[in-house]
């Protein structure tokens, strides 16, 4: 309950800051990929909540871990039970901002490189991240994309001894969000 209240306060802070111009989606896509010597692991999640405040540059996304879909059922089981422990840590979140907001003109159509800085929380561990992404400003919305690597050890995700060295220690995460203006209530 405490976590929910904290998250709601943070999201509220984003929404209530200044003359907020919010763009949101509930169908964002987050996928990850790792190519170790033992096996290739790929999974995707297409029900990701994401929002950006184009006035302040604050940007969030939230992912339910159990919504990741894998090609192999066994991988999905291992992912949820042994790696991310999704019963204990059901969500992954990112809360941060567009660091170079002055370089991104959300009022003009075009594609802009963006530096995204903030806190990425996976497996209950929060780390500072700074990654390059793009925002494509188009008619009626903004498409945000970023691809970056995370080190499993940084999030206290341990690889079982039997497969150490055969599963990649870094995984590539891709985020694609098609953000639309927030409907007015």
């Amino acid at each position, binding site marked *: 309950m405490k976590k929910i209240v904290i998250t709601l306060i943070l999201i509220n802070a984003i929404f209530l800051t200044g003359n907020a111009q919010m763009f949101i989606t*509930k169908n964002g896509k987050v996928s990850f990929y790792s190519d170790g010597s033992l096996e290739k692991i790929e999974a995707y999640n297409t029900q990701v*909540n994401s929002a950006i405040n184009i006035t302040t540059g604050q940007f969030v996304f*939230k992912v339910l871990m159990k919504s990741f879909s894998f090609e192999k059922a066994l991988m999905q089981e291992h992912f949820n039970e042994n790696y991310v422990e999704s*019963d204990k840590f059901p969500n992954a979140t990112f809360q941060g901002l567009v660091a170079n907001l002055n370089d991104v003109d959300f009022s003009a159509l075009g594609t802009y490189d963006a530096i995204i800085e903030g806190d990425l929380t996976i497996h209950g561990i929060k780390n500072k991240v700074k990654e390059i992404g793009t925002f494509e400003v188009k008619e009626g919305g903004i498409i945000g994309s970023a691809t970056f690597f995370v080190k499993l050890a940084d999030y206290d995700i341990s690889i079982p001894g039997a497969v150490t060295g055969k599963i990649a220690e870094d995984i590539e995460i891709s985020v694609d969000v098609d953000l639309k203006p927030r409907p007015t209530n």
Partner: protein
Amino acid sequence: MKNWIKVFILAGFVAMCVIAYVWIFVYNKPHRNYEKAKADYELQAKDCYYHFSNGAESADITYTGKVLEITGIPTYVEDMDTCSIIVFAYESGMFGDEGIRCSLLPKYYMQSKEINNKEEITIKGYCTGYNETDVIIEQCSLINR
């Protein structure tokens, strides 16, 4: 044939059977078929949503990771490439409508076009949790349609 050769062949055969079993039924075991699975809980969509939104932790323990069969009047259907998301909206919040979002299996894509906001429907699927705005149910099938 000498006994040791027979034992060797038999052991090889058993080993191959074990490897084949592990390969087929463990490593490549199919995903659970939620369409055919028996629901762990049958409940009204509205009750399910409010259980989560009023006390997410107890609802999480009860429903997350379970097969739910929910009944209610959908608010609208979102079209997503080759699949649809049926939305039961009960509140309005920071992310717009809040409620239950059910991703239908692609085979129900055409049937989802017939869904309207007047008729009650029943949906079965795998509940992946509550993201503080919506309850997410994946791999859903339409019951009795």
